[in-house]
């Protein structure tokens, strides 16, 4: 069995004005994409996670359910929840990460009246 | 430059003094409402004393009884106030005022004087009213001489004032006796408390024309008291800044300070094994544990040993002619009042220390909770007093073996002793049950006033019993069957009433506690 991991509060950046479970899902997905959570790693139980992150267990459960729905994690009855082994799932998460980043950059560009390409060009300009 | 600084200092200490006075404001007869309460209290006390003490005592005896009362109340209040200094939420602010410690002490002591003065004045009024009524109503030769009455009134007024001052100051000295070797002095403080208590018993015994009680003597006592008061005042100003403040500052609220712990050293309690006790029994054991933690302290054991030795000596010397019966009679007052006081103190401590909130949410009826406290207090008192009784018995036994007196063990004596024991038992049970009534006022403060006469009756109980139930010389006359019947009848009548009062008080104890907290919150600091 792969070793357990313990979440720490500083593993996550939580914004209290946005739904918590969404943020957990996003950030766990990012961890998977970055390889911080190796495929097959067993995630802590809902109870352990709630205790170590000091978060409502319902929130944790929703997050885990969402991760399961996105096929990023798999639950084996009686054994726990594991990060998926599917390379396809990991690739999807990386794609999702990239899409979110790009979307944010586009929003930023629009806020100063540029397209994304113009933004990148501006950044690469010499003084 | 210097005068400006000292002027500033004077101004600050004046303000401080005014602030100290202000702490008593709610209790002083300043507004119509509080003055009314004082007047009511005085009136009730006069009535009580007319009933209990009318007819057989000289004016001087009455005044002396009052003097003992003044002694006891001002001393107790002052000592309790001093005790409570570390617990005072205002403590740190007070300690860090930029004023010399002496100034703080002076203001604290002088600030307490007006209230003590009012107490003394109230007692004087009660005694004087009693005497005036006695002179008007009865035909006693003792009260015939108007000059004598006036002279006594005057002399004792000064005595009361002096006593109030003396013992307000003396009470504060207790702050010095709380650390290190000085804790042995606590014995002296206890003695100072015990003297008026036994004096009350003694005064009812000695004859009305005793020369020690004449107004001239009273004037001498007054002068002596005044001189002592001045001396104690100086002593306080010298000694408290040096040694008292350390204790006040160091003692962590509700926790024992390091040095106190080292000396008092609660005997390391053995790792408690889980008992199978459940429910009410656990409540009771918890209560008992509180008392056991007190009795486990070396200092307390020392005091107990000293008292026990005294009792043994008493037993030894009073065996001939069954004088021990009279000794028991004289001491009857103390155990009774002691037990009732324990019950009240437990409530006050637990409210102040906020332990009562936990107790009140135990899943038991209020009556069950209070009953567990009662039982804890009764059993503890029985054990402690039983030990003292045993000591007395041992002393008597030694006398019996060593120097057997001719005359012992008359049936009158034994009957008298049995009767007194029965009286004590009845008084303790009825009195402590009844005393719970005072916790029942909840949001009806007017009910709280009703508890005052009840408490007066309870505390005067032993004296009343001495007066009405027991004959002058127990050993001679013994106890008649009629007296036994009277006792039984009173017990049967008063028990259900006391129980009702108990149930009433228990049910509403939560509401009362919250009222006290509210008041504390509003008043803050002193008070």
């Amino acid at each position, binding site marked *: 069995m792969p070793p357990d991991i313990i979440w720490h509060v500083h593993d996550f950046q939580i914004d209290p004005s946005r739904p918590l479970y969404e943020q957990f899902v996003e950030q766990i997905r990012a961890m998977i994409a970055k390889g911080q959570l190796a495929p097959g790693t067993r995630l802590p139980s809902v*109870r352990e996670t*709630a205790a170590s992150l000091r978060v409502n267990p319902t929130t944790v459960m929703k997050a885990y359910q969402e991760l399961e729905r996105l096929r990023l994690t798999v639950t084996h009855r009686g054994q726990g929840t594991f990060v998926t082994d599917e390379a396809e799932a990991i690739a999807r998460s990386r794609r999702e990460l990239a899409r979110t980043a790009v979307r944010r950059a586009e929003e930023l560009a629009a806020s100063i009246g540029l397209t994304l390409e113009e933004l990148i060009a501006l950044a690469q300009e010499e003084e | 430059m210097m005068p400006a600084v000292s002027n500033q200092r004077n101004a600050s200490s004046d303000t401080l003094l005014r602030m100290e006075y202000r702490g008593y404001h709610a209790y002083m007869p300043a507004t119509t409402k509080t003055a009314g309460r004082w007047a009511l209290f005085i009136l009730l006390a006069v009535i009580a004393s007319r009933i209990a003490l009318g007819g057989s005592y000289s004016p001087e005896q009455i005044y002396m009884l009052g003097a003992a009362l003044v002694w006891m109340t001002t001393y107790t209040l002052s000592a309790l106030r001093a005790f409570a200094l570390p617990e005072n939420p205002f403590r740190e602010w007070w300690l860090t005022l930029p004023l010399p410690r002496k100034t703080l002490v002076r203001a604290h002591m002088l600030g307490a004087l007006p209230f003590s003065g009012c107490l003394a004045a109230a007692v004087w009024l009660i005694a004087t009213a009693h005497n005036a009524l006695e002179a008007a109503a009865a035909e006693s030769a003792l009260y015939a001489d108007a000059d004598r009455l006036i002279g006594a009134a005057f002399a004792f007024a000064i005595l009361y004032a002096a006593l109030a001052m003396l013992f307000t100051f003396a009470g504060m000295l207790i702050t010095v006796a709380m650390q290190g070797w000085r804790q042995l002095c606590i014995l002296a403080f206890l003695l100072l408390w015990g003297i008026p208590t036994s004096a009350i018993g003694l005064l009812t015994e000695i004859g009305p024309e005793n020369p020690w009680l004449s107004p001239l003597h009273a004037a001498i006592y007054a002068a002596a008291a005044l001189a002592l008061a001045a001396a104690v005042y100086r002593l306080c100003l010298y000694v408290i800044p040096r040694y008292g403040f350390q204790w006040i500052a160091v003692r962590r609220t509700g926790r024992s300070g390091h040095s106190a712990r080292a000396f008092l050293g609660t005997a390391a309690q053995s790792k408690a094994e889980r008992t199978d006790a459940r429910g009410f029994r656990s*409540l009771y054991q918890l209560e008992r544990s509180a008392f056991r933690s007190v009795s486990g302290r070396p200092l307390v054991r020392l005091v107990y040993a000293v008292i026990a030795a005294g009792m043994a000596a008493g037993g030894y010397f009073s065996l001939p002619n069954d004088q021990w019966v009279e000794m028991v009679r004289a001491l009857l007052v103390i155990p009774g009042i002691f037990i009732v006081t324990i019950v009240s103190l437990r409530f006050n401590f637990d409210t102040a220390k906020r332990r009562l909130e936990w107790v009140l949410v*135990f*899943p*038991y009826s209020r009556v069950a909770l209070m009953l567990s406290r009662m039982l804890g207090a009764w059993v503890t008192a029985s054990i402690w007093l039983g030990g003292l009784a045993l000591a007395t018995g041992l002393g008597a036994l030694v006398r019996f073996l060593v120097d057997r007196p001719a005359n012992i063990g008359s049936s009158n004596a034994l009957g008298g002793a049995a009767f007194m024991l029965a009286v004590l038992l009845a008084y303790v049970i009825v009195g402590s049950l009844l005393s719970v009534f005072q916790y029942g006022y909840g*949001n009806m403060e007017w009910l709280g006033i009703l508890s005052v006469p009840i408490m007066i009756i309870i505390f005067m109980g032993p004296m009343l019993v001495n007066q009405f139930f027991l004959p002058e010389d127990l050993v001679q006359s013994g106890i008649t069957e009629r007296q036994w019947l009277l006792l039984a009848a009173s017990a049967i009548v008063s028990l259900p009433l006391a129980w009702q009062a108990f149930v009433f008080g228990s049910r509403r104890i*939560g509401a009362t506690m919250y009222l006290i907290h509210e008041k504390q919150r509003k008043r803050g600091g002193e008070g």
Partner: protein
Amino acid sequence: MKPELNYAAPFAASTSSAELTIRCRGVGMSFKKKNVLHDVSFETEKGTIVGLLGPNGAGKSTLMRILTGLMEPSAGTVEVLGGKPSVETLGKLSFLPDRGQLPNWLTAEQWLGYASGIYPDWDRALERQWVRKLEVDASMRIATLSRGQEARLQLLTCLSRRAPLVILDEPFTGVDLLSRESISSAVAEEAAAGDRTFLIATHDIREMESLFDRIVLIGGGTIKGVYDTEALRANGLSVESCYREVFA
């Protein structure tokens, strides 16, 4: 702030389907002609963590006393665990008093010994578990415990019982950071374990923000709002900002 988020508002949907542990309707409390509480209505569902937030003097403590049956309300109805608060309810309700103190002449071990006899629903296994997790040194005398240590011991006393409803009144006052985290971690874990309901009155909003399912805002003796925390966050509001909007 969208008014439909407020459960206390008249047109909000009532949670009649779920099992309710606490149900207050129009509760009022007058004390010597002063209205300490008036028209207090809220509910807590089984298995949720509910926060009771509000400024000092808002009537939180009085409400707690009414919920624990220590005081009778002057108006309205209160239902706790399906009945009127009584001594029987206390047997199923674990209450942590505000600024209360445990008997300080005992050691922690001794206190737990008495507690196990006094509370009918005491669970030794839970006790051992929480002694370990809350890092309570059982041999220490309660008089020598620091504020944080005593707070953890008090919570331990509450959690070692199998009571379905746990009410904590200001569990964090004057408690150090690590003890505070210990306490909220314990609450989270315990909420995950069973179907206990928690009602927590606190000023420490930041520490508990992520724990609450629902918050009840009380001010000036009445309910200013009842909100579902996830619904708030779905609308871009944190618990703290909601509090500020209601009370500032």
